[in-house]
């Protein structure tokens, strides 16, 4: 069954799995933060990820800002865009059912993608790697940039988890998720905190987009093609579970990579098959109730 599986193939796919898992984890974490703390189903997360990549591309092609500058500037620009979005279209429906936030953010996705497509076309735009070359590990070639993406993603996920679970700010956010009225009665500006939370989650999507730009083509549909998988990751991890989103993101990236080696026909289905099993046997998600939030 495993004839013809060389170490190069195995570790190559494993690396691709870890890379994909890094993006799954970062995007799913942003979604989980937004859903877990604000109860907003942010369908625009993929479009915001794409915006991060586009802003990085624009900064480079128009203003000559290199990747390392874009890594800071693009997430900020996308976060500000997210804050404006929250104020204009999410705040007015804050007291309605979650379904409305899903519909509104889906509509926003179509508008954002349509505008970008009209302006820049559907063809992917190239973004050269800021870290060319790599190292030969003997059993596989490890590109520097991909190694950077994995390390940066792990550090970002860990730092965000620590921020939410182990700081005073995180305690405010978790408390406001349970009872915004009580937290506001302590003198804390909860509406502003929620706006900034959305901005932070969207900024994470933008940051993922910048990381993705040198690996994937920068195109209007790069986010929407990923979003279904990201939602599956969040559902499997447990809606709103930040640790669940991170761990499930990496795990499913690796599982997907290994499936490509051992049973390639199922590679595109394996995540959804796992989601199906999770929904049947543990509908609240694998990691729900295992962390503070």
């Amino acid at each position: 069954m495993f004839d013809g599986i060389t170490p190069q193939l195995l570790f190559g796919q494993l690396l691709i799995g870890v890379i994909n898992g890094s993006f799954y984890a970062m995007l799913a974490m942003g979604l989980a933060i937004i859903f877990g703390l604000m109860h907003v189903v942010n369908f625009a997360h993929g479009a915001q990820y794409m915006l991060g990549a586009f802003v990085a591309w624009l900064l480079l092609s128009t203003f000559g800002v290199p990747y390392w500058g874009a890594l800071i500037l693009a997430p900020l620009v996308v976060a500000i865009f997210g804050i404006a979005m929250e104020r204009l279209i999410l705040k007015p429906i804050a007291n309605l059912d979650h379904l409305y936030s899903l519909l509104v953010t889906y509509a926003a996705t179509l508008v954002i993608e349509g505008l970008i497509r009209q302006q820049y076309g559907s063809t992917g735009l190239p973004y050269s790697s800021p870290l060319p070359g790599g190292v030969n590990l003997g059993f596989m070639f490890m590109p520097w940039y991909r190694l950077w993406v994995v390390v940066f993603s792990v550090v970002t996920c860990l730092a965000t988890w620590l921020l939410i679970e182990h700081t005073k700010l995180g305690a405010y956010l978790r408390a406001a998720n349970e009872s915004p009225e009580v937290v506001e009665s302590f003198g804390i500006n909860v509406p502003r905190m929620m706006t900034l939370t959305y901005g932070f989650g969207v900024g994470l999507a933008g940051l993922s987009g910048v990381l993705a730009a040198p690996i994937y083509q920068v195109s209007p549909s790069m986010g929407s093609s990923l979003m279904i998988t990201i939602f599956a990751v969040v559902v499997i991890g447990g809606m709103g579970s930040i640790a669940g989103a991170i761990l499930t993101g990496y795990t499913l990236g690796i599982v997907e990579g290994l499936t490509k080696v051992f049973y390639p026909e199922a590679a595109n289905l394996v995540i959804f098959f796992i989601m199906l099993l999770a929904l049947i046997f543990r509908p609240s998600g694998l990691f729900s109730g295992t962390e503070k939030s």
Partner: protein
Amino acid sequence: MLDDTTAPLLEVRDLRAWYAESQALQGVTFDVRPGELVTLIGRNGAGKTTTLRSIMGIVKNRKGSIRFEGNELIGRRTFQIARLGLAYCPEERGIFSSLSVRENLTLPPHLKSGGMSDEELLKAFPNLRARAGSRGTSLSGGEQQMLAIARILRNGCRFLLLDEPSEGLAPVIVKEIGAQLRRLKAQGYTILLVEQNLNFARSVADRHVVIEHGAVVDQLSNEDLAADMDRVKTYLGV
């Protein structure tokens, strides 16, 4: 007992409030003077909790006038009202299940000078010290109530709005909460207390404001209450 001529700290005038289309308060008027402990008493659904929630701006659709230290509260948001010096302890206690006892206790920020330090709070509420690392909601009902009261003493607010702190608690715990409230009053806190337990209300309050059908129908001192319990029991339907 305070002099009637002392300027009120809180002045509620013709307060009307709505939940969607339903009018819950029909025109509530009363004062609370500095250092007083005043109870709002009345039947279930009379409008006592809505009065507290309207004062705090949690019920947003409200009209009339609520003045605290001369500042109009109508039109202000809840966090702005809290920053003026009003602290609120809700009926359901509002203990956060995702936070430990210590996190619950230290959550409110210092809004004004004179708030109790974490050490002072643990000294005043010693039961909480041993349970500091436990989940907030793993505490007993009485301990949760103590925690809910303790944490609002942290932010330095000197006007406390407490919604039925004795509800559902064993008599011995109710007695302990009563002792805490008397200590707070002795320390100069002003307290507006929603209460259905008449004996508990009598044991701690200076004055009582009776609310029925969303309006104030009577106000009486604690001495008057003791002398005319039958009258008040009629209001409460007990």
